[in-house]
């Protein structure tokens, strides 16, 4: 069973709000670096970047981060996905990093991303923006900016589609058939 949670309009409004919240909380975008987690987090971070430039007419710094090499499940024999490019062409020391991802679930991806960031330097702060928070955290991690909270069971799958990668904007929840 599939149900639509967010439409294209909902997603656009959520990103709009998050962009405003980021600017409000950080009093601008001067020392900000938006870092998107490959693949859809990177798309979200780009959209946030252009939204922020619309609002404040400032080009926030932007990077992408592939966390594959920081995963904790390579040794467990699970398949690790293909390694993609990481590109953070800035000195991140003293900057505020806003990590962006599509879905926040167990928190393990974010743990890996924070570890990866620390290898690039010592940011002043790391904040987290996600389009969907579906709960079931396994680590003490919480988001600073949330598009929508969606209560789910562990069996459900949350699918985020973004036009840059999937041809359309939507968030759906799929109940696994058991």
């Amino acid at each position, binding site marked *: 069973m599939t149900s639509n949670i967010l439409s294209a309009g909902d997603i656009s409004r959520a990103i709009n709000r998050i962009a405003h919240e980021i600017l409000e909380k950080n009093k601008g975008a001067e020392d900000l670096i938006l870092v998107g987690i490959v693949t859809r987090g990177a798309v979200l971070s780009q959209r946030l970047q252009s939204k922020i430039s619309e609002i404040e007419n400032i080009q926030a710094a932007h990077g992408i981060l*592939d966390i*594959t*090499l*920081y*995963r904790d499940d*390579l*040794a467990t*024999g*699970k*398949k*690790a*996905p*293909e*390694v*993609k*490019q*990481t*590109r953070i062409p800035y000195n991140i020391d003293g900057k505020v990093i806003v990590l962006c991802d599509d879905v926040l679930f167990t928190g393990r991806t974010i743990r890996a991303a924070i*570890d*990866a960031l620390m*290898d*690039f*330097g010592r940011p002043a702060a790391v904040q987290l923006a996600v389009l969907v928070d579906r709960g079931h955290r396994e680590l003490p991690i919480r988001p600073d900016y949330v598009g929508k909270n969606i209560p789910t069971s562990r069996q459900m799958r949350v699918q985020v589609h973004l036009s840059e990668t999937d041809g359309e904007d939507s968030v759906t929840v799929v109940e696994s058939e058991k």
Partner: protein
Amino acid sequence: MPLAIKHLLGTEGLSRKAIETILDTALSFKEISTRPIKKVPTLRGKTVINLFFEASTRTRTSFEIAGKRLSADVINITGSTSSVVKGENLIDTARNLEAMNPDILVVRHSASGAPWLLKEFVDCPIINAGDGAHEHPTQALLDLLTLRVHKKTLDGLSVAIVGDIAHSRVARSNIHAMKTLGMNVTVVGPRPMIPVGIEALGVNVEHDLDKGIRDVDVIMMLRVQFERQGAFLIPSVREYSNLYGLTQKRLARARPDVLVLHPGPVNRGIEIALDVMNGPRSVILEQVNHGVAVRMAVMYLLMGGGDEGIN
């Protein structure tokens, strides 16, 4: 996790998809070596043993650095410091090392086929770092990565491999991989250095250097291997250098965008002139740089990384 290949022994028989997976992964790994902290935790707790029975600067260091940048523990054993000097044979050495539970064994040996022999006796994945005059797969892969960085596509690219083809594991591994990727390969050298029947691998043979390099995209120079049979195959070093040495004058007649590769170590002024080696068409040091990324990729994929590993 079911890996289609467990070891990386050679490029012969390696599929196009496997080669492309390794090259794609290596491209992503290049960035790690440019970070202030050149290390990721991916292979933390894994042990890599470099077992080198032949002299090496580049390859051994490259494997060691690759392992360390992935946070593996890397142990180096060279022939002269191992119990081989006390008479222990290769199989016993490998079995004893395996008893200490390494996760990857990197082997270089002067006997062709040595890693194939070892895989019958040990369980852990083996990476061939050069076996006699047979194969040197990671060298071919780093050469291909270098070409990938400079050329849009490898398909249809034409390459001249110049020198002692008969005794070159670099040539052999490159020929197999390049043919798999649809490249045109010409081998160039004096008759004693060109194996009889090499056309069967799908390569062209040319004995005249100027003709061989005239219209190619890539010139790969090979080292005259004085420590092997090299010196016996040619009347004199000077004659070889005159006929087959790549000089600026000769290079000027090749395509302006030609790339010059050499696997190293270089016999300066013999197979390649100093000004060519250090000139703008040379990508020799890039090859070395790419060696680290390729070896990181191979270790990562053999350890279960990648969507489908190497297959």
